[in-house]
């Protein structure tokens, strides 16, 4: 079984290095094929591990080698396959495998085909390190690896020039990549502080040792650690106020978006909270803030998705919103529900993105849904997948989203927090509305793309076939909720609905479903016939506010970027005037000194000897003085 752990972990690395060998050469089909095969090997190993753990309840813990042994600090390269990590492994490798296969088709015409696969596999490897590490340090390595790979992938088309925000809200791929990386760095500082707090107080970074020490730690320490760790999670999971990078990350190729949103990157924050649940469960204040922030983000992101015209951005906002759901669940203590939603969400969100990729591919990189419509004739398979995924996202019975999202809303009710409960229900309605607004505007109604001279076509067959596992899982994943509960409670604290909620559960389900179906119906009424634009609506303050993402990017630029740039300019001037001038001064003094003392080099040995004698006398004086001093 240990070898399976290593196979699951290192197959993506091998894939990355293999693809990296050909990174500078023109496209080679076999690179994609072999990478996908290796990823599939990784998935198979993960699945076997999962089966093994489920059937034998045996956690597999391996130690590759010592990594850092300095003084009291001993950090091994240890990996663990337990209930949580194996769940994540299966989800990550499955989605990644599909994305790899999909990429063979999607990146067909890209000249950096091989490089793309190298990055993609490295991304998966980093995520696996993050997930499988048995200590916080390894997790941090994976954490940073994911950050680096996201930077590489978002900026994959780095050669595109910068444009203004009016043309492209993300300015350019390299700009978006930098934004993502810098925002993550800011949050990572919090993460690091959290790790330092833990190490300072516990003396170790191993999960088991740290969690065993929790009862001995002061509440203030735990609160600080939890808060610091959550700041890290906020960055990776793009929680408010560090959320802007996520939508800008759409500049990367669509498979990357799918990977980031479904499997590798944004789920890391949720994973951290779930992984460190012993810490968060003893810090109710932090947990409550997490829940509140999660709920807020769910609503906040959904509201922005309502009016957006960019296909991928709508889906990105929906990810943000669903992450809010996950954090709400985790904050309320229902960690396994959060993990379940994470897994279920991964399947249909990946499906959505890949579908969006198909559309984009078919529409020749056009993403504005106002320029689409009636695509269902041209892209039947994609339409099916997208519709299915949107239904799952909206939470329609009996699809995956229904089970997981319903459980979260139920949890909010069960906790007696009616404000969160109401907001989450309304958000569920909004989710249904924007999802189907997007579906209807894309696939139904009049065919607006003709005016732009676009001839849409369906994606390759094998790509559609490769996507089918995701579609199946988007439908059936929710059915395993009970089984998953039994599987995961070996590790995560169980969360049971209390008695009075239990007999109200049906009503809550009905209310949620009513909101969801209501949202779909509203979207159908408004958009099924085609696009009807109303000047009044689009001119209203709320519409503008939402479509401009609450002006947050603008505010960030005005409040943070610009002053920071000014400050940097000031510092640059100080550097030029003070530091550089000082350095120059030293050089000038030496130069002038050399010029002045050049006369000493008369070429006359006698003069040199005289100077040597003077030096000898000076040394003698020093020697005598030191004798006297001593």
């Amino acid at each position, binding site marked *: 079984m240990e070898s399976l752990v290593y196979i699951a972990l290192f197959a993506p690395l091998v894939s990355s290095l293999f693809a990296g060998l050909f990174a500078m050469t023109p496209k080679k089909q076999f690179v994609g094929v072999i990478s996908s095969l290796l990823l599939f090997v990784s998935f198979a190993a993960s699945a076997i591990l999962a089966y093994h753990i489920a059937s034998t309840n045996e956690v597999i813990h391996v130690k590759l080698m010592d990594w850092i042994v300095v003084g009291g600090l001993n950090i091994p390269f240890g990996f663990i396959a337990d209930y949580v990590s194996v769940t994540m492994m299966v989800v990550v490798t499955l989605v990644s495998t599909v994305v790899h296969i999909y990429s063979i088709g999607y990146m067909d015409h890209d000249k950096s085909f091989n490089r793309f696969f190298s990055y993609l596999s490295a991304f998966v490897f980093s995520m696996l390190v993050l997930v499988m590490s048995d200590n916080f340090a390894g997790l941090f390595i994976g954490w940073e690896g994911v950050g680096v790979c996201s930077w590489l992938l978002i900026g994959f088309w780095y050669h595109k020039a910068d444009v203004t925000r009016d043309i492209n809200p993300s300015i350019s791929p390299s700009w978006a990549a930098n934004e993502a990386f810098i925002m993550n760095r800011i949050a990572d500082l919090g993460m690091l502080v959290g790790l330092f707090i833990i190490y300072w107080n516990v003396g170790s970074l191993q999960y088991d040792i740290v969690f065993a020490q929790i009862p001995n730690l002061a509440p203030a320490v735990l609160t600080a650690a939890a808060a610091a760790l959550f700041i890290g999670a906020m960055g990776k999971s793009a929680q408010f106020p560090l959320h802007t990078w996520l939508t800008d990350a759409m500049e990367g190729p669509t498979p990357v978006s799918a990977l980031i949103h479904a499997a590798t990157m944004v789920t890391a924050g949720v994973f951290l909270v779930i992984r460190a649940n012993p810490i968060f469960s003893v810090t109710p204040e932090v947990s409550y803030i997490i829940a509140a922030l999660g709920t807020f983000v769910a609503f906040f992101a959904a509201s922005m998705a309502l009016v957006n015209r960019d296909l991928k951005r709508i889906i990105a906002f929906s990810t943000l919103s669903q992450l809010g759901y996950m954090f709400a669940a985790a904050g309320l203590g229902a960690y396994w529900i959060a993990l379940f939603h994470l897994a279920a969400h991964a399947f249909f969100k990946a499906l959505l993105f890949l579908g969006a990729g198909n559309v984009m591919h078919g529409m020749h990189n056009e993403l504005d849904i106002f320029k689409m419509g009636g695509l269902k004739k041209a892209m039947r398979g994609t339409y099916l997948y997208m519709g299915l995924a949107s239904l799952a996202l909206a939470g329609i019975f009996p699809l995956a989203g229904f089970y997981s999202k319903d459980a979260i809303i139920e949890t909010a009710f069960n906790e007696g927090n009616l404000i969160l409960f109401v907001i989450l229900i309304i958000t569920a309605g909004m989710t249904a509305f924007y999802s189907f607004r997007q579906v209807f505007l894309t696939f139904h109604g009049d065919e607006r793309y003709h005016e732009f001279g676009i001839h849409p076509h369906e994606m390759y067959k094998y790509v559609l076939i490769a996507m089918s596992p995701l579609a199946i899982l988007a439908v059936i994943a929710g059915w395993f909720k009970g089984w998953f509960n039994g599987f995961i409670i070996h590790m995560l604290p169980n969360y049971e609905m209390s008695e009075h909620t239990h007999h109200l559960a049906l009503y809550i389900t009905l209310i949620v479903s009513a909101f969801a179906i209501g949202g779909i119906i509203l979207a159908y009424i408004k958009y099924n016939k085609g696009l009807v634009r109303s000047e009044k609506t689009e001119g209203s303050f709320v519409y503008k506010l939402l479509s401009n993402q609450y002006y947050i990017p603008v505010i960030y630029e005005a409040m943070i970027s610009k002053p920071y740039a000014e400050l940097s300019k000031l510092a640059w001037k100080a550097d030029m005037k003070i530091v550089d001038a000082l350095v120059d001064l030293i050089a000038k003094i030496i130069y002038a000194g050399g010029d002045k003392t*050049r*006369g000493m*080099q*008369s*070429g006359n*040995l*006698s003069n040199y*000897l005289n100077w040597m*004698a003077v030096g*000898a006398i000076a040394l003698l004086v020093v020697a005598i003085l030191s004798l006297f001093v001593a």
Partner: protein
Amino acid sequence: MIGLNHYLVLAGILFAIGLIGVLRRRNLLMLFFSTEIMLNAANVAFAAISNFYNDLSGQMFAFFVIAIAASEVAIGLGLLILVYKKENTLDLDDLASMKG
């Protein structure tokens, strides 16, 4: 009674004489002579210390100083002869060709 200090002071004076020679003279040969004086002054100090502290190390040092002086004269004299053959002078003032 003659103590160690007597020898050391004598060595110091001899060394100073050698130093004066090094500073004063411009003839290469005379510079060599002055250097020899300084080496000998050091040797006197070594031998005296060796005697008064009952330690043979001082004499050992003096032996190696003498060995160094012997090699110095072998090489130095060879160079001296070459310089004289080439420049027809041993005066440092006339040999100053490496002016900065």
